[in-house]
């Protein structure tokens, strides 16, 4: 349909056309500046502008601002429009202000005065404009000025429904700015009773407010629980003709249902057995409906229906008290895991993470391990794959840790760079938590370094060294494995660090084998020396001095390295110092000085290597 301006602001339409016809950014800026100059002169001009013209120019300014250009005038004219008794002028004035005025603008007092006037107007449309403006700006000053009036408007029997709705959300906005405006006591039960209002629009708006109030003070608003449950019950059992305008594509009041389910998640399961029974029935009904054939093929129907379903499952998980419901919820999500629609698979993976943490449903979740692993491998959308990773992490326990860690390592080989760091952490945590065989743990961490070395933080490799030091049973294995890893052509620097430390401590355990004799170990490490950063080289030097103690037969070779110019005269102070000191130590020759305890104990933490 062609763009037609029914309200006559033809000048605006022409201006917008001009902008669209500009062939370049420069042309656009030129046209805008021309218009700004025109408007400036009109605002400053001798002839006072009438409301219509003011409205037109203020609207043009708004358009220019929304294009991305700064506007530094026009605010006064916009504020003037507020006091017009023409609705369209008021409306533009309020829009300009909502978009452009910041809370500390000097015109705020005038604006607040206009709002006050409109708030007490007989015309509900004007009242709503005022409420909308307050909700849009929601500054502290507004909260202080209107904080006592809005609640009155909200609960008064004389307020019409349409205004009540706006008042509820306006009050919510102010409450978010200044929580003290609704004191406990006098307003509580009246606000809670809005849940029983005849008009579903009012209830929908009010439940948002109540949810926020409950989050601040759940005890005070406890009365909402039974009201929420009965309201929910009435909606869920309604046929699709009952709620008329509030039925959305054959789903009765989905937004309200969702909000009520959300509201109930602020509390533990209801104490009153009657209320509790009713709630359980509701949840069962919602789960049952999910199994019925859909009333419409439209995606809007399934989205609304499933939205309520997901929220119901969230509540079931939160209550964590009905094993039957938890298992049913889990099965429903399991069905969604293989749904055609990507959105549903995404949400199912997300919801299942929560189910995995509940002891009642943890086992049920594990049954879906294979499906989740398949998702990890085959989903095209990286955000869905991420949810699969999160779920595997959540469902991991002693029985499936090896498999899951294996799958995650596989995935890591080709994973997006944006998610590698998080994945590395997750794998490291799982490996440590569920290791029964520490050789497995060592393998996993070394694999991590090999696959995603750049994303292995210091904490991770400090940890593997700490564990190896504290577990005799794994020291020989660790030495052998790092030795082999070092032989790979492209060896990550973090691997060199780990290897240097471990061989320095436990290289003797593999020195008996000719293939990993002291000299071979030393050469292998030293072959990486010049490729490494200064910090790593410092670590290597410490390993060398440990070698002097472990393997006196290669002392001379090591001393040569320590003596070399690139070390003794290194521009890196740390390297210079270490080479010098270690060289001196080695020349003193007493075995006491180079006692392993003395050297390692003095700097046991890998960071100080």
């Amino acid at each position, binding site marked *: 349909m062609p763009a037609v301006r029914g309200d006559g602001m033809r000048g605006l339409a022409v201006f917008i056309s001009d902008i669209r016809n500009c062939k370049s950014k420069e042309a656009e800026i030129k046209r805008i500046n021309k218009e700004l100059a025109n408007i400036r002169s009109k605002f400053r001009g001798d002839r006072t502008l009438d409301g219509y013209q003011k409205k037109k120019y203020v609207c043009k300014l708004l358009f220019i601002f929304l294009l991305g250009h700064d506007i530094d005038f026009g605010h006064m004219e916009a504020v003037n429009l507020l006091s017009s008794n023409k609705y369209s002028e008021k409306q533009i004035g309020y829009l300009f202000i909502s978009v452009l005025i910041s809370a500390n603008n000097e015109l705020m007092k005038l604006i607040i005065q206009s709002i006050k006037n409109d708030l007490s107007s007989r015309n509900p449309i004007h009242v709503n404009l005022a409420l909308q403006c307050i909700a849009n700006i929601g500054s502290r000053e507004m909260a202080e000025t209107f904080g006592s009036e809005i609640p009155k408007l909200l609960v008064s029997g004389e307020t019409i429904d349409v205004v009540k709705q706006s008042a509820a959300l306006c009050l919510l906005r102010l409450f978010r700015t200044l929580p003290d405006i609704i004191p406990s006591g006098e307003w509580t039960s009246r606000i809670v009773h809005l849940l029983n209002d005849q008009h579903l629009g009012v209830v929908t708006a009010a439940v948002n407010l109540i949810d926020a109030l409950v989050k601040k003070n759940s005890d005070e608003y406890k009365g909402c629980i039974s009201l929420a449950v009965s309201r929910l019950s009435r909606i869920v059992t309604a046929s699709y003709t009952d709620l008329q305008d509030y039925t959305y594509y054959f789903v009765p009041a*989905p937004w309200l249902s969702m909000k009520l389910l959300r509201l109930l998640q602020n509390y533990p399961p209801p104490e009153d057995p009657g209320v509790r029974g009713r709630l359980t029935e509701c949840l069962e009904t919602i789960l049952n409906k999910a199994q019925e054939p859909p009333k419409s093929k439209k995606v809007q129907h399934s989205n609304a229906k499933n939205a309520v379903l997901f929220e119901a499952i969230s509540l079931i998980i939160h209550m964590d008290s009905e094993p039957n419901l938890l298992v049913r919820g889990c099965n429903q999500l399991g069905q969604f895991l293989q749904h055609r629609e990507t959105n549903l698979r995404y949400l199912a993976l997300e919801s299942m993470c929560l189910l995995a943490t509940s002891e009642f449903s943890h086992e049920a979740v594990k049954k879906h391990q294979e499906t989740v692993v398949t998702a990890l491998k085959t989903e095209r959308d990286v955000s869905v794959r991420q949810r699969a990773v999160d779920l595997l992490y959540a469902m991991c326990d002693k029985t499936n840790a090896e498999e899951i860690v294996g799958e995650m390592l596989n995935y890591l080989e080709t994973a997006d760079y944006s998610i590698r760091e998080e994945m590395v952490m997750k794998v490291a945590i799982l490996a440590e938590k569920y290791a029964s065989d520490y050789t497995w743990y060592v393998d996993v961490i070394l694999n991590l370094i090999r696959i995603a070395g750049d994303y292995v933080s210091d904490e991770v490799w400090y940890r593997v060294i700490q564990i190896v030091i504290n577990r005799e049973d794994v020291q020989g294995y660790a030495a052998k494995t790092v030795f082999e890893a070092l032989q790979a052509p492209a060896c990550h620097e973090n691997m060199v660090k780990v290897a240097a430390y471990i061989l320095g401590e436990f290289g003797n355990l593999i020195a008996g084998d000719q293939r990993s004799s002291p000299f071979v170990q030393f050469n292998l490490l030293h072959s990486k020396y010049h490729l490494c950063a200064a910090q790593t080289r410092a670590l290597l030097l410490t390993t060398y001095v440990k070698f002097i103690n472990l393997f006196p037969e290669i002392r001379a070779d090591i001393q040569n390295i320590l003596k070399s110019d690139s070390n003794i005269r290194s521009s890196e102070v740390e390297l210079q110092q270490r080479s010098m000191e270690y060289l001196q130590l080695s020349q003193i020759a007493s075995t006491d000085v180079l006692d392993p305890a003395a050297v390692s104990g003095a700097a046991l933490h890998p960071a100080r290597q």
Partner: protein
Amino acid sequence: MLQFMLLFSRQGKLRLQKWYVAHPDKQKKKITRELITTILARKPKMCSFLEWKDLKIVYKRYASLYFCCAIDQDDNELLTLEIIHRYVELLDKYFGSVCELDIIFNFEKAYFILDELLLGGEIQETSKKNVLKAIAAQDLLQEEETPQGFFEDHGLG
């Protein structure tokens, strides 16, 4: 609650921006730029939801326009998609088969309609009929006002 809603074209031109939290202008521009780039880079069959910074983003494309909402972590994604759909339905009913041009030339109307649907970042009225009634009432007030400059604009002033 909704933190903001953006409407933008496939070329990345912003057609509407409604913010429900206060940010300095510079930050708004940065967020807008970065998010638009992220969304435009996504392929057609991908999920309608994504995590972006510490927000959840829900978006859907209708013809040449992307409708994009940022919501809090505990908000319901599927119903946010339906908020978008409801908004599109309202625009469609109001303009009669709405297209991008309608929103460009009648941008202020798009904001007025949105303000009847959402307030303070929460959905205000879920009945399509009631929202349209409210908009119609506004329009009626407008028509009753004599457009004074109307004659001037058309060279008859």
